[in-house]
């Protein structure tokens, strides 16, 4: 244990109190961290990181050396336990703060919103600091909330020794401020983009729901929304009826790239693709399944057969069939065998002969 003999008697006394309090501080840090982590998770707030620490003895000694007289008792020092929440978006800092207010007792006299401390034309450390206590506790702790970009700025500035004893020339301080301004701009832009994208998703959802499918570009989001309408359900049930099969639910998202490879550009194109190929896809599926007693099918059966039929009707032949299997199963030489099998089965079906 370091002696810190350079400290005055009052500081020595506070340091001794800290040592005695240390186990309680450790316990508080873990409890507060865990309660906050759970509350954020329950509210569905994704944060980049939550970290906590108990102030190291050497760090406290340094603080007491500089301003020990300011603290009457050890409990006047509010950052012995620190928790930091780092969010991706600036909007989320306020959401985290709202949750913290609900689960902790916040000491408003001592809490600081550093985001509001700057003059309108100055930029710098942006972080929200609350001094909190557990509802049943009396030891204060500091909760810092900031975005990932604010965290990067703060960490890098700290690493450069910005707050060290050496006086930093004005021009360098200005450069730090410029960077802080840039980070603030980036934070705002990311938050704005998130809002724009959320609006776009809602817009696409409403277009899909209202049936305006030709206006919806074929993207992962749009296809996912379209699948909620169960567009392949009817054909799946019709195919399943051949062997009174049960339908096992699976994701159809792997087929998106197949549909895109066909040049389908909108959800409307996918709807037309279904309408134009349903009967032939049914015939192909029946030609495969009717000679078996297989009574379990994946929910991808309809879409798979639609894709196979479409490729054959487009004259893509065995290579086209193999490309579909490569896209949904991963490339495998055995896919050529499957392509041969499908090609042979399809060769007797009306749509193949009509082409010839």
């Amino acid at each position, binding site marked *: 244990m370091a002696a810190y003999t350079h400290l005055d008697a009052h500081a020595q006394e506070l340091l001794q109190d800290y040592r005695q309090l240390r186990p309680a501080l450790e316990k508080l840090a873990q409890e507060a961290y865990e309660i906050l982590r759970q509350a954020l998770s329950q509210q569905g707030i994704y944060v980049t990181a939550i970290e906590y620490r108990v102030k190291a003895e050497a760090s406290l000694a340094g603080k007491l050396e500089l301003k020990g007289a300011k603290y009457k008792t050890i409990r006047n020092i509010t950052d012995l336990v620190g928790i930091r929440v780092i969010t991706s978006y600036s909007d989320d800092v306020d959401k985290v703060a709202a949750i913290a207010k609900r689960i902790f007792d916040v000491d408003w006299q001592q809490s600081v919103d550093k985001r509001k401390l700057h003059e309108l034309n100055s930029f710098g450390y942006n972080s929200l600091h609350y001094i909190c206590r557990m509802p049943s506790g009396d030891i204060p702790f500091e909760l810092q909330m900031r975005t990932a970009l604010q965290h990067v700025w703060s960490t890098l500035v700290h690493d450069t020794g910005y707050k060290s004893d050496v006086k930093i020339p004005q021009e360098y301080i200005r450069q730090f401020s410029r960077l802080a301004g840039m980070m603030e701009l980036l934070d705002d832009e990311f938050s704005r983009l998130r809002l724009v994208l959320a609006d776009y998703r809602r817009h696409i959802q409403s277009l899909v729901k209202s049936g305006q499918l030709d206006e919806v570009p074929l993207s992962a989001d749009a296809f996912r929304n379209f699948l909620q309408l169960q567009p392949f359900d009817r054909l799946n049930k019709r195919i399943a009826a051949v062997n009174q099969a049960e339908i096992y639910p699976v994701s159809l998202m792997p087929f998106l790239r197949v549909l895109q490879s066909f040049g389908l550009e909108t959800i409307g194109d996918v709807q037309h693709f279904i309408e134009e190929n349903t009967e032939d896809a049914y015939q192909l599926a029946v030609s495969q399944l009717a000679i078996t007693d297989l009574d*379990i099918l994946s929910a*991808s059966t309809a879409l*798979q057969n639609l894709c196979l039929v479409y490729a054959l009707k487009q004259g893509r032949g065995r290579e086209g069939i193999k490309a579909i299997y490569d896209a949904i199963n991963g490339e495998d030489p*055995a896919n050529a065998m499957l392509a041969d099998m499908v090609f042979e089965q399809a060769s007797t079906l009306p749509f193949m002969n009509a082409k010839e």
Partner: protein
Amino acid sequence: MQTTIQEQEGNIIAILEGSLDTAAVPETETAMSPLLEATDKDVIIDCTDLKYICSGGLRIFLGVLKSTQEKGHQVFIKGISNDVRAVFAMTGFINLFKFK
């Protein structure tokens, strides 16, 4: 129908030999139950000598897949014949499994 369970290189392996038809489903399901209990291993189902698979067999495979994926591991199917692969393809289950 014969089912052998082995552990090799940190994986649990089920070696299936014969025809997994409706009659063989109950005994195969029992024999493959250790695959459902494995908590920290990838599963390999060796189908090199599997000649046929019925719907009940597919259901066993799907049960193993679901259980293994829930534990964060993968199921690989090894040495599958063309006939059995065709069953996986026509039922649409082929893209659920990884093949070795």
